[in-house]
């Protein structure tokens, strides 16, 4: 996983609450057996006017000019600003892969759905939950100011606005470390191999049926 330390990028505002993972990446693209290539189909049903299918040449599809990601002023955005309960619905990690593939490393929202939130940290994407009031202000500022950028510093847990104003955000210590160091958490868990084996031995005595084979 790629490390995350700092990012300065254009912000794109997605002014809807309860944005679900079906909207982030519709199901037909879940048929892929790969981890990459989802970027062009991020928000597919909102982004294009036709029906998207895997294998289409996305560059020749009709774009929905009203959808915020298609507006030239947000071209090259790396930070997605969203409303509460972002990423609700299905567990599909493809939603995070699509965001990442489309160039987003940070999502800022008042709240996130649990599974999506977890999936972000496995892929080097930083979900920042901050106060609704601050999010409201950001929406206003982004809409008023073409080319609006934010700088995010994970080490210091700070968002810096263009005028230099700093906003602190909270993040779980373990998640922060994973992102800063780009950790492989399977490797980390396997360091506790012996502890897992000991747990299994103990459990096997108390509840042997848990170890009956599925075959």
């Amino acid at each position: 996983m790629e490390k995350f330390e700092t990012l300065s990028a254009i912000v794109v505002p997605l002014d809807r609450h309860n944005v679900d993972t079906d909207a982030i990446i519709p199901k037909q693209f879940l048929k892929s057996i790969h981890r990459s290539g989802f970027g062009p189909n991020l928000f597919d049903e909102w982004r294009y006017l036709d029906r998207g299918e895997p294998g289409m040449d996305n560059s020749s599809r009709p774009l929905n000019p009203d959808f915020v990601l298609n507006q030239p002023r947000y071209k090259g955005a790396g930070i997605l600003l969203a409303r509460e309960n972002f990423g609700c619905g299905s567990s599909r990690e493809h939603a995070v892969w699509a965001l990442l593939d489309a160039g987003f490393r940070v999502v800022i929202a008042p709240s996130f759905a649990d599974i999506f939130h977890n999936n972000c940290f496995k892929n080097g994407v930083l979900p920042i939950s901050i106060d609704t009031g601050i999010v409201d202000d950001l929406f206003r500022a982004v809409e008023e100011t073409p080319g609006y950028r934010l700088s995010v510093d994970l080490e210091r847990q700070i968002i810096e606005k263009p005028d230099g104003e700093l906003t602190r955000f909270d993040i779980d210590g373990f998640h922060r470390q994973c992102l800063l160091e780009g950790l492989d958490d399977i490797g980390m868990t396997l360091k506790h191999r012996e502890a897992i084996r000991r747990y299994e031995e103990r459990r096997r005595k108390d509840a042997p049926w848990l170890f009956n084979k599925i075959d």
Partner: protein
Amino acid sequence: MVGKTLYDKLWDAHVVRVDNDGTALLYIDRHLVHEVTSPQAFEGLRLASRKPWRPHAILAVPDHNVPTVSRSEGIDDPISRLQVETLGSNCTEFGITEFSMGDPRQGIVHVIGPEQGATLPGMTVVCGDSHTSTHGAFGALAFGIGTSEVEHVLATQCLIQKKSGNLQIRVEGKAGPGVSAKDIALAIIGHIGTAGGTGYAIEFAGSAIRSLSMEGRMTLCNMAIEAGARAGMIAVDEVTLDYLAGRPYAPKGDEWLKAASVWADLKSDDDARFDKVVSLDATDISPQVTWGTSPEMVVSVDSRIPDPENEPDPVKREGMKRALVYMALEPGTPITEIRPDRVFIGSCTNARIEDLREAAQIAQGRKLNESIKQAIVVPGSGLVKRQAEDEGLDKIFLDAGFEWREPGCSMCLAMNADRLEPGERCASTSNRNFEGRQGQGGRTHLVSPATAAAAAVAGHFVDVNEF
């Protein structure tokens, strides 16, 4: 000492180790796998030259992409076919048991786990699928995970987790006639909202919950994720044991007796403390129908579509307006004037035998309304299908004009050929009414199996008690 909640007990029993900040390594007893969220996890294992820690703790099944029409021709769509074949080859390579498409036990992962006794009380159960919460109905800690976590469980049999809060939802009293577990689930989500359970593990309790069958309890726990909670659960009782006894992977003989005595403790202690308690009165709940594009946009079948102008929160108000445009509905319209084009009875929420019986009871001796383009019944598993056929339910449905299909996820998410066309309206027993969920531009109304069948017959939504 204060008592423990059911969730506390399940959590504590599975902690392998814990860090100072509360991050725990949690042991996973049962891993369920399907074709959509696993290929990248197996690929990750291969790239790192790793092997599954306990291949025999895993049960795999293709369900999302499989056709529900005759399978003798295989899968038409080459991309779907590749994904289903990839599951098969991964399972063979890593020594994992798979119920493949031709297996009579194949079905939706959340239907077959319990049906086979692969889901047991006291277990941690995970699957790369948000509706894994279903299995919590057995007094298990069951939750959905992403693909990276699927790989993590494959490689280590553990997950790195932080404990959630404890939320108890109590539903007391006796639900009225025609009110099913689905209606209770929708009423709860309407009450607390789709983010109401975020950050919590929900325990459903109260007399209305106790009186539900296992099928009903699974329906309810299935929808915990629609209330924002990764896990929903219900304490073990006689109903749980009666359901599990004799299932293929359930313990047998002396081991069963020992297990049953251990499971008796899988309930919250009387003095357990919850971070939050929500109470509902079952007698207030009537059959429910969603009108919008989120499961919280739900009302009783006998009421009208709400007016966004009465919603004080501006963000919510905008959401409601957008939903009404998408759904092509006007505020104030009675729900009973909404006319579906198609009817879908199926999904991991409502495709078990009891659900099919409820729908069949309504369909019996009646005919589809001529305005209904299509009504399909998709059993949750091959075994549910066979049982239904033994009971003659297939015949009831076919006589009424419904289609009787092979098991799978089908029109719940429309990854296979079963889908809505743009603008079509569907009465669906599934769990999500998001934009495009059942096909791009499709409009979904979530309902119980009985309500879906009643809509198929009447041509519009109707209170099942009028039948």
